[in-house]
């Protein structure tokens, strides 16, 4: 059973400019449960392109936030466009300022680096995540296959399938 065990480390500065380690519990509270991921085109779509002799987009590496509040997994829309990912549908997302905002849906594969599993995510919604420093929001559609243990006092997360 693949298990990812992660503890976030952080470094800050004292008022006189000396580097100081930040306790992992504080880093986890501030940054949330983040993992490094590699995003690529969904496996079956990529295989179809290869059969046609077409090039497939290069994977992109970035940060993913595990968001138990999100019903769907999202990808940064700018990143999806720059990877030239094909749009396979348009969904709608309720936002704070608009009742319904149309969002492109992309077929992707998400590999958590250090974890020996790739998630097939054929209906991943585009969203503006870049400003948050994120490439992916891992939502409950993928988390429903996982066990997640959030250890706040030690600043550790454990994810298993």
């Amino acid at each position, binding site marked *: 059973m693949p298990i990812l065990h992660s503890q976030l480390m952080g470094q800050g500065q004292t008022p006189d400019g000396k580097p100081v380690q930040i306790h992992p519990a504080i880093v986890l509270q*501030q940054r*949330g449960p983040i993992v490094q991921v590699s995003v690529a085109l*969904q*496996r*079956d*779509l*990529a*295989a*179809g*392109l290869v*059969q*046609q002799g*077409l090039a497939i987009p290069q994977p992109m590496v970035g940060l993913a*936030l595990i*968001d138990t*509040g*999100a*019903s*769907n997994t*999202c990808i940064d829309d700018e990143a999806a466009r720059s990877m*030239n990912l*094909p*749009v*396979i*549908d*348009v*969904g*709608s*997302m*309720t*936002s*704070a300022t608009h009742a319904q905002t*149309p*969002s*492109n849906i992309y*077929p992707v594969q998400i590999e958590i680096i250090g974890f020996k599993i790739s998630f*097939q995510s*054929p*209906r991943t*919604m585009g*969203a503006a*995540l870049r400003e*948050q420093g*994120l490439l992916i*929001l891992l*939502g409950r559609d993928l988390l429903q296959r996982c066990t997640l243990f959030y250890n706040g006092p030690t600043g550790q997360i454990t994810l298993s399938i």
Partner: protein
Amino acid sequence: MLDVERTYFNENREELLRMFPGKFVVVKEQRMLGAFESIQEALGAGAREFGMTPFLVRRTDQVPENVSIPALTLGLLRANTSLTTDGSGTNS
């Protein structure tokens, strides 16, 4: 994006559902490529036919998805109460 394909699907939804219940259909412009057992099969077939260009893949019995991502839509992914401001907050 995919306006023509989504319109085609919506206008033919009942017939598609009757002919291909629970299947995934691939639509490009006003042409249906086929109906498939899984979304993986549909994506592979769409890629072989249309390459990297957009094409619609949708389950015939799909209902509008209720996507809820509160932290993102409320702009709270990086909310931090330690970053204080001199301005006034919202009255409650």
